[in-house]
């Protein structure tokens, strides 16, 4: 290839970048609510089963496919799928590996700007819930709706420059600044600094939460131990029977697998892209495991000990039962910090940490598309950053504009941030196990590996993972597809949002078609070179 190949500067850098991509708001806000609602401590049994038998094996498959594609000089999902599948159809199926990060970025950067906005709100005292504790909940929801423009569409059309729009523009620009700096000069350097800062911020808040004791002596039951108990005590899902009955419920196992799946960023098209910048003799097995372990540390050790116990101590069961990212993160927790001594400082630290968690993820969403534009159109980084900035800027503006009830944002998350991720993961697993060949994949994964893949990897990735993913897809079509298409028919904003997704898909498919000839020529040249050097991989 004529372009100079970008590479990671260090192994720690790529591990922290992949971990940064995986660690997001879901680790701190989705996981605790999910666990508390699905058996408390008992939830951790299916959770760890899903981690060991589903999440980590699929991660290893993605790391391996990415490194393999990188050997041919490719970094984008469609090109790598084309090399692995050796049929044009796989190249076109790779469109999901671009669609997902690009569309998610369009709304995720907005949520990221809310985190920054809330951090500033706590730092400068903009957020004021009043003096009456009975009004805290209403005031918190009112502040959030006002900040994100959930009361009306067209936030920026009311004749004044809205603060949330300013923060959104700044955060958007910061993302593209780091992307423009390149893989090792921008993403890797930023993640290497941001991940330790995130951990320190989380540990500060964790220390504060664990030392809360019993803040209100009039309500002695609302103490930190009972808060931890609300999160970790094993319990039945519906309050009937013993906690073992939770393990007998399929929905608990599906919820645990779903949590692992989305938490590890499996099926985002990001790990494949990041791994493609590795060198042939670089390790993927230990690196993949370390990135997954880092994500678990933030989720179980920090997210699991902070959010629910803090909400319980100040708001009781009603507050701790608030599930859902927005409700828990932006309605409940500001109230918690209002009650907490030193709440302004800890609120600032908490939302700064959420912002860092979000930006390390959003950066990873831009890189796959940058790599794709460079490969498909043969353009440089400056042009590809400008083009992607224009496309994602328009899309993000669409989400900002249609802010009433966050309809557009929620629909895009429901579509691209949920079901298409399962589709891409299923495509990847089938491609790795059944088309590329699981034995060939394992042999390639072991090149340069510092630990061996476990003995059950082959069986899991060939049979269990595809079956699980296809079951998830089947359940979605059976239970949710009617509701999904019904809302598109009945709501204009949702129909427009669906149109946005279709436009992006068509745009990307055209670019894949344009890039096809270039990739065919490059793959043929690189393949003959690689095969002449390494017969064992192509046997």
């Amino acid at each position, binding site marked *: 290839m004529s372009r100079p190949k970008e590479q990671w500067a260090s192994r720690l850098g790529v591990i922290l970048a992949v971990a940064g991509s995986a660690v997001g708001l879901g680790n701190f806000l989705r996981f605790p609510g999910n666990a508390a609602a699905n058996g408390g401590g008992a939830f951790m049994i299916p959770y760890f089963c899903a981690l060991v038998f589903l999440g980590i094996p699929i991660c290893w498959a993605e790391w391996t496919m990415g490194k393999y594609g990188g050997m041919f000089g490719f970094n984008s999902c469609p090109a790598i799928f084309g090399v692995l599948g050796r049929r044009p159809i796989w190249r076109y199926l790779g469109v999901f590996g671009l669609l997902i990060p690009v569309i998610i970025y369009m709304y995720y950067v907005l949520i990221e700007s809310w985190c920054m906005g809330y951090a500033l709100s706590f730092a400068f005292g903009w957020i004021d819930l009043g003096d009456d504790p009975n009004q805290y909940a209403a005031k918190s929801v009112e502040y959030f709706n006002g900040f994100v423009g959930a009361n009306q569409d067209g936030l920026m059309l009311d004749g004044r420059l809205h603060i949330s729009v300013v923060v959104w523009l700044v955060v958007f620009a910061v993302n593209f600044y780091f992307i423009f700096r390149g893989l090792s000069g921008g993403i890797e350097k930023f993640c290497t600094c941001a991940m330790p800062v995130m951990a320190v911020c989380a540990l500060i808040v964790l220390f504060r939460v664990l030392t809360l004791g019993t803040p209100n002596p009039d309500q002695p039951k609302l103490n930190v131990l009972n808060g931890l108990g609300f999160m*970790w*005590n094993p319990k039945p899902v519906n309050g009937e029977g013993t906690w073992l009955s939770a393990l007998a419920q399929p929905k608990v196992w599906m919820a645990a697998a779903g949590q692992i799946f989305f938490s590890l960023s499996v099926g985002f098209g990001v790990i494949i892209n990041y791994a493609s910048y590795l060198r042939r*003799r670089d390790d993927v097995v230990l690196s993949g*495991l*370390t990135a997954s372990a880092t994500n678990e540390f933030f989720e*179980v*050790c920090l997210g*699991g000990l902070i959010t629910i116990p803090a909400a319980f101590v100040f708001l009781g069961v009603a507050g701790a039962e608030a599930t859902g990212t927005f409700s828990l993160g932006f309605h409940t927790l500001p109230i918690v910090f209002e009650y907490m001594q030193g709440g302004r400082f800890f609120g600032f630290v908490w939302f700064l940490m959420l912002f860092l968690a979000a930006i390390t993820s959003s950066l990873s969403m831009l890189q796959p598309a940058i790599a794709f534009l460079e490969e498909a159109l043969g353009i440089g980084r400056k042009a590809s950053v400008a083009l992607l900035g224009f496309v994602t800027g328009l899309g993000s503006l669409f989400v900002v504009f249609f802010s009433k009830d966050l309809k557009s944002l929620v629909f895009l998350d429901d579509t691209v941030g949920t079901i298409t991720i399962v589709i891409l993961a299923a495509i990847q697993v089938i491609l790795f196990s059944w088309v590329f060949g699981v034995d060939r994949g394992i042999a390639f994964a072991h090149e*340069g590996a510092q630990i061996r893949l476990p003995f059950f990897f082959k069986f899991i990735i060939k049979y269990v993972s595809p079956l699980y993913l296809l079951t998830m897809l089947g359940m979605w079509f059976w239970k949710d597809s009617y509701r999904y298409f019904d809302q598109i028919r009945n709501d204009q904003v949702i129909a427009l949002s669906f149109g946005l997704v279709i436009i992006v898909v068509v745009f990307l498919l055209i670019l894949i078609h344009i890039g096809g000839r270039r990739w065919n020529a490059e793959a043929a040249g690189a393949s003959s070179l690689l095969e002449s050097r390494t017969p064992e991989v192509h046997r």
Partner: protein
Amino acid sequence: MTNSGWIFMVCSVGSVVALISWCFLKVLSMPSATEHMHSPIDIDTKDLNT
């Protein structure tokens, strides 16, 4: 917080801390394949310029 709650919390947090510690210990103690590679300037070819 019940005894079983303590057991689940300590086992979950402990196993994740043990896993991440083992992983980072391994990553930081073992040089990667590319770190074995030497740039041309590092390689002493034993040539003499005289």
